[in-house]
């Protein structure tokens, strides 16, 4: 067998990982496309994009898509700005080390353990935040509380690797702090910020854990998200809906990711050209 692999020039080192990954993820992911165009998991009659249009036009999916969109477009910029400012403040002011540690510790706290506190503050009673129309606000708060740490680590690293001589030069040229921030510090931090953005997107889907422990599979409709939709489709075991939902979800994420990579690439190119 190894002779054969050698002929293919594929390293045996990759084989265990590649086999496991293919069997559990890649092959069924591609295989599943078939289901998304079939009448059902048991009846493979080709139905075209009927499943997709059914998913896209269902009320639950639209609600989930809308809420996920609201959540991501508010929470992600908010946490990125907040953590950049916090990192900048820590970098410039050098407060006691505990400040940094305290902001970071929430990343280690499991959702179910933190739920005791959040229930008490915003989660119980008919008039609580989580049961009101503004429940999304609570979800965003929990998300920011829990994920600032990751962004802080990345932003701090970006700031700490700044070339001091560039900053000194701008001081000598008489730039004010805000000019320096705008024209030197922020542009130099773009690569770390893009990476922080990718990590934030990945983590933003995990907010499901916190919403789930607080409100279960069918939460307040104003915080019913794509993750809930998918989760509940597992219970129905409708393969055709499950797979077409997954592909729509995946497509949205890939488009997002490519956009970010593209911004990063074109930006680095521009900076590269101007230097």
């Amino acid at each position, binding site marked *: 067998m190894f002779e054969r692999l050698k002929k293919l020039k594929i390293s045996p080192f990759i084989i265990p990982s590649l086999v496991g990954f293919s069997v559990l*993820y890649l092959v069924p992911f591609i295989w599943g496309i078939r289901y998304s165009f079939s009448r059902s998991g048991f009846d493979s009659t080709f139905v075209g994009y009927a499943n997709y249009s059914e998913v896209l036009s269902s009320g639950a999916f639209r609600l989930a898509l809308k809420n996920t969109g609201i959540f991501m477009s508010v929470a992600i910029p908010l946490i990125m700005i907040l953590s950049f400012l916090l990192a900048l403040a820590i970098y410039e002011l050098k407060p006691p080390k505990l*400040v940094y540690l305290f902001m970071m510790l929430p990343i*280690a*706290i499991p959702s179910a353990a*933190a739920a*005791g506190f959040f229930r008490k503050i915003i989660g119980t009673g008919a008039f609580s935040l989580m049961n009101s129309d503004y429940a999304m606000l609570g979800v965003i708060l929990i998300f920011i509380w829990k994920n600032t740490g990751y962004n802080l680590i990345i932003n701090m690293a970006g700031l700490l690797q700044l070339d001091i001589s560039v900053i000194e030069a701008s001081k000598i040229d008489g730039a004010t702090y805000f000019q320096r921030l705008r024209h030197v510090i922020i542009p130099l931090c773009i690569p770390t910020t893009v990476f922080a953005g990718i990590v934030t997107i990945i983590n933003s889907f995990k907010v*499901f*854990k916190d919403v789930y422990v607080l409100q279960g599979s069918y939460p307040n409709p104003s915080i019913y998200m794509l993750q809930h939709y*998918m989760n509940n489709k*597992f219970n129905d075991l409708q393969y055709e809906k499950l797979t077409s939902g997954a592909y729509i979800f995946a497509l949205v994420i890939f488009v997002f990711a490519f956009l970010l990579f593209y911004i990063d690439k074109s930006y680095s190119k521009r900076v590269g050209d101007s230097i």
Partner: protein
Amino acid sequence: MKKVFIGILIAISLLYIFPIAYTFTNSFMDEKQINSYYIETIPDQFNLQQYYSLALDKGEYFKFFLNSIKLTGVIIIGQIGIGIFAAFALAKLKFPGSNIIFAVYVLAVLLPFQVTLVPNYLVFDKLERLFDIQLLDTHLAIILPGVFSSFGVFLMRQFIRGIPNEIIEAARIDGASHIAILFKIVIPVIKPAIYSLVILTFIDNWNLIEQAIIFLDTPKKLPLSVFLENIYHEDYKVFFAAAVLYIMPALLILIKGEGYLKEGLVMGGLGNEK
């Protein structure tokens, strides 16, 4: 002026630590106080009652704790043990298709559980129907996808790329095999990445919820990340002690390894290509 800003920073950091501190102090309160309508922060009298009754009356708590340890431990060991070979191959042993494989691995990292659990589920279901291999409702249904999740390969590959090729070439000329290079040169150099991977994977899997609620039906197989919810509803009087014990491993690992995390997360993401 500077002092004012530092004061504000300290105040913000206290907001971040408050939910954790609240959980800890509440674990030392008696039943009456945790049931109080108000937000109680300081125990009326320091009291270990919650811990005693957890240990004496709620022995099953520790079974769920063990479930969590088993799932998290096996996933970490498996992901690193298998992933390190793949990461080395992808970073240093260029072969046709290696870039495509890496790109697919990266895309998989981006997807949320609700998407990746779908292919996992299709496989488990097929195995059960065609070969009568039961994986659904077993811990393996969580462990296998965890072990082969591409995140570890991705992170370690980024680090291995940073090792100068000259070092590896030199060892090869001296007659070292790939295995020897991996164990004698690569692994010692990327230890910080491995530590940070352990921390990140631990935090993530210690809090695994999606996989458990979809793949497990039998209540006694649940990890604590899901079962703690039952304690909240059925045994509120010991909830905070249970939560504190559950938090501790993740918290200690984070505090101990915080320095590595900085290195691992950032270098891994941005790459240190040479």
